[in-house]
Structures are given as C-alpha cells and as structure tokens.
C-alpha cells in the first residue's frame, strides 16, 4: 500500500471530482486498523521479549531481559502479548464472520491466477523486460502473501506457544514429540516471521522509494486516488468504470463523496 498525504478536501463534482488525484479513498475501516494495530503491537512485543531466549548466550540479551524487569517479568509480558495476538486473530475471524452474515464479505484476499501473472509481470518489470508494473487488484500478490503468512504464522505461534506454556499438560494429552515440535516450531517460525516482517513487509509498505519514509494507510486507512491508481491500477480502473456506469442515472449532486466505492469491508486488509 502506499504513502501519505491526507490530500485535498473533496472538491468539485462529478467525474472531475472522482479523478482529483488528491482525493482520498477509504481502504481500511476502523475494525481492520484496530486488528492490525493489535497484531503489530503484540508482534513487536513478542519479538523483543522472546528474542533473548534465542540469543541467550550474549550479554545484550541479558541486558534486554533486565530492562523488562528480569526473566520472570519478561516471560509474563511475552505471555500477555501472546494472548493479545490471539485476541487480534479471533477479532479478525469474528469480523469476517460478521461481514459474511451481513453479506458484505468480499473475497478480494483470495489468491487467484492473476496473482501468478502479476508476480511474473512484476519480476519482468524489475528486470527491465517490461515498461510498466502490472495493474494490481485491490490486494497485490505480496499483500496477499503477507495476509496468509499471518494466518499460518499465528496458528503456529499461538499453538506452539500454548504447548510451551503448559509443557506438563501437553505431555499428559499428547505424546512427548508434540512438545518437541512446538518447541522448535515456536523459535524457528518466530525467526522466519521477524525476518519477513522487518525486511519484506517493512520494505514493501514503508521503505520502497515511492513510499519512503512511511505509509500512513495503516493509521488513517485512507489513500489518495493518485496512489490508488499507481499501486492498485486494476482496482482504480474498476472504480472508474463503476463511476461511469452510475453517472447517467444520478446526475451527481455537488460534493458527492469521492470516497467513491462503498467502504471496502472485505476479507482481510489488516496487514500483518
């Protein structure tokens, strides 16, 4: 997703207004932003409180643990943050359920053949074989990757975290190798997730030269039409043609919201 700019207030009318590049569209509603915020803050807390256990031999890990108030306090903070992460995940699934009940659930997060084509197209673009980036849909293939990676990651981390939290209960229910899997899965998946978030996700959403230094979408939920056109060309086109189709019927009253498409309350969106 893309950069900042709480652009100009909606001005003008009709088509001209819709095309005003400084107008903003609402991409994420409050629920989605809360889900993302809870997930992000619990994730960062979990990383900094869990990391010392992996690099236990070095002095800075010990200082970090002391900073949190000692081993027991660090463990407690880690568990509270883990519960928050589980709550964020449940919140999101419940939210999807609510949308489905209200028949407003869109499936724009599901991967499809266009994503494979977009990946190839994007790589061609990177290599200079193609002049333009593919026109991405509402969610690009790398955003979908992040979303589903979080699904996988939260399942692994919350599951293995519970196994490690209650090792004696685990072995009285399951054979002991289940705990062994949980033990390694938790540490290794944490490393994978941290690298994916801090290298890949941060680059894609904040550090890309087109966006640097940071994107505000995860806070405001809004994006300018200009950015939408650039980052999600296919969605932009769709939006335009929808406006075209609707125009003759209603001769747009002044100031009709350029937050044109109904608030996109579809699956996902909460960036990991």
């Amino acid at each position: 997703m893309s950069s900042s700019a709480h652009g100009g207030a909606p001005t003008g009318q009709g088509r001209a207004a819709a095309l005003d590049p400084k107008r903003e569209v609402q991409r994420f509603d409050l629920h989605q932003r809360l889900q993302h915020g809870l997930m992000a803050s619990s994730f960062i807390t979990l990383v900094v409180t869990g990391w010392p256990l992996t690099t236990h031999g070095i002095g800075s890990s010990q200082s970090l643990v002391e900073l949190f108030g000692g081993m027991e306090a660090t463990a407690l903070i880690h568990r509270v943050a883990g519960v928050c992460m589980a709550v964020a995940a449940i919140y999101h699934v419940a939210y999807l359920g609510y949308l489905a009940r209200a028949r407003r659930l869109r499936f724009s997060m599901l991967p499809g053949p266009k994503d494979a084509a977009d990946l190839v197209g994007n790589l061609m673009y990177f290599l200079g074989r193609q002049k333009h980036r593919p026109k991405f849909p509402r969610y690009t293939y790398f955003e979908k990757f992040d979303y589903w990676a979080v699904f996988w990651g939260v399942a692994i981390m919350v599951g293995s975290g519970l196994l490690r939290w209650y090792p004696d209960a685990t072995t009285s229910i399951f054979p002991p190798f289940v705990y062994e899997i949980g033990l390694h899965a938790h540490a290794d998946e944490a490393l994978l997730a941290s690298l994916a978030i801090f290298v890949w996700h941060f680059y894609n959403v904040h550090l890309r030269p087109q966006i640097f230094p940071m994107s505000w979408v995860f806070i405001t939920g809004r994006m300018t039409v200009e950015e939408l056109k650039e980052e999600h060309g296919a969605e932009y086109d769709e939006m335009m043609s929808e406006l075209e189709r609707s125009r003759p019927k209603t001769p747009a009253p002044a100031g009709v919201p350029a937050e044109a498409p109904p608030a996109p309350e579809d699956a996902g969106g909460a960036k990991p």
Partner: protein
Amino acid sequence: MRVLPPTGPGFFPLLGGKPRATLILTTLLLAPFGTGHASGPASAPTTAPTAGKAGPLPDGALAADGFTGSEKIAPPDADPLRDARWCRLCHDDDHFESSAWRTTAHTEQVCRDCHSGYHFNPHLPAELGPEAATTNEGATPAKRRAAAWATCQPCHKDAVPEEGIRHGLPEPGKPAAENPPTCRDCHGDPHEVLLSKSLPPVERRRKMNDRCVACHGDAERMKAAGLDDHVPAAYGHSVHGRKLDLGGERAPGCVDCHGSHETKDLKDPEVGRATCGECHEHATPDFVTLGDHRPFTLEARPVSFFTLKFFGWLTFLTIFALSMHVLLDVYRSVRVIMAANRNDDTPGGHA
C-alpha cells in the same frame, strides 16, 4: 582464638617486617640440633605475635604443644597451632588472609582443624605428613579422596552419609578419569568455599553448574565413566539453561534436579516424575523424557531433528526469495530514479 588477628609488616616489629626470612633462618640454625620436637624455636617468633595488639597467642605458647626447652611459658591447654598467624608466616597466599578468610564458609575453622598432622612449627618439608596430599596436585585420586574423606567427613557428617554417596565413593586403583570426584572437585578449594546462602540463587546455580560441567563436559573423563559428554551442551540449549543464562531465578541448575551427594536416578520413572513434579505440577513420565538431555540428532530425537530441518529450510528459502524480491525492487527503483534524473521527460518511471 577463633577471631583471627590482623597481619602485616607492622605485626612483626621485632623482625623488621620480614617474618618469613627470619623464620627460615631460625629453622636452618636450629636444624643441626635435631628436628621437630627436639628444641624450641628461637625466641623471636615466639614473642613476635604478642608484640602486636591483642594477639591471642600467649607468651612462649609454641612450647605448649609438646615442645620442650621453654618451661616458663604457657598454660598447657593453649594450642599455638590453632593460631593461624603462625601458619601464615610462611603460607602467605592471599586467601589465607583473614579478610578473605572471613568471606568463606570455613571462617570458624583454623588451619589445623583440617591440616591436622602438624605438632611443631616450623615443620620441615620432609616432615609433611600424608595429609599434605589433600592439596597436592600430584597425589593419586584415590589418595586425595581418602584424605578428603578423612578431612571433611568428621565435621560434614550430614553431607557425607557413609552409606549413600553415589557421587564419590573412593575406588582406589582406577585411572583418574574413572574416579568419581572428591569433595573438592565439586565444592572447590576449601579455603575459598562459600556458604551457598551467601550467593544469590542465580549466581550460585551458575557456579555450581560450572563445577559439574568441568567433569561432565570432559569427553575423556565421561568416556571412561561410561557417560555421555553432550549433557552440558544439551542443558545449555534447554529452556532451563537458557533461562538461567538470562538470570531466571526459577530456572534449575544441575543439582536442583539431580541432587548432589546422593545423585538421583532420574531414569527411574517414579523418581523422575517426582523430581519434575516439584515445579511442573502435572508432570508425567512422558514429560520427564523431555528433559533427559538427549541431543537433537537423528538417532536421539528424530522428531526434533526433522522439525529443525523443516523450519531451517522453510526459513532459508522463504527469506531468500523475499530478499531477492526486495533487492530486485530496489534495483529497478534506483534505475527508474536515475533515468528520471537524467531525463526530465520521463518522470516517475513507472506508470
């Protein structure tokens, strides 16, 4: 007598602050007239300590321990060799200094409580008794153990039950590596040994673990004893070991689970379950196997082995692919920006 007096050059005013030189000289001078009990030492050392303030050594006390030749002297029950100042005339290592001594567990003891063979002073090197071997690096393990037993056991009766020591029975005649440890191997130098409660729990456990690892991490020694030397490494990687590294006060060290003098047989499921159960309320025999220090090898723990392999490759391949994607993106972005700078007609780069 229990309170050790201060020492230092000022303590020996008559000797010009060089007690050791004077003592040796005196010894050599007296040697032709016989050794040991034959004659009393020169008067200088006899009176020297009393010249200092509050010296508990009575005038001429040296003669009281069976010495002859200085009849005017001391009450017969005064034991001059219970005053460590005499020993420190020669044995002047730092840790025999009273200030260091006071921090140890044996602060109430004096030299001869343990080094019991010396009835005269100064003693000549040739007259060192067999108990000298308790601190002699060259002594055989069996001798060291026998001496340690004889030296420590009279006081530490509770810690060294005669019937039940699994971790230190003397077995003379075996090579060093096969021999179980003596008191000193685990508790360290008796001159420096500390009361366990004088240390915070984390530091105490780390210190004790180091002592265990000194032998249990020694491949040769463990091979001779028929044990695995991977245990310290496995403990270090375990959650217990990691937490202790990070200062966890509830993280157990070696002896918390294994015991010390009567090391527990944790392979016995009931003993294992009870031991783990001290902290992990619902411990089962299966649970005990999680902490048995098996390494994460294919043979010992195949599930761990494959889990680690799986996640290792998953992480490597995923991060490699994602990093490549990022680098290519950077590469293209830089080219676009450079092209835009060269030619204002092509701003922005991408459509």
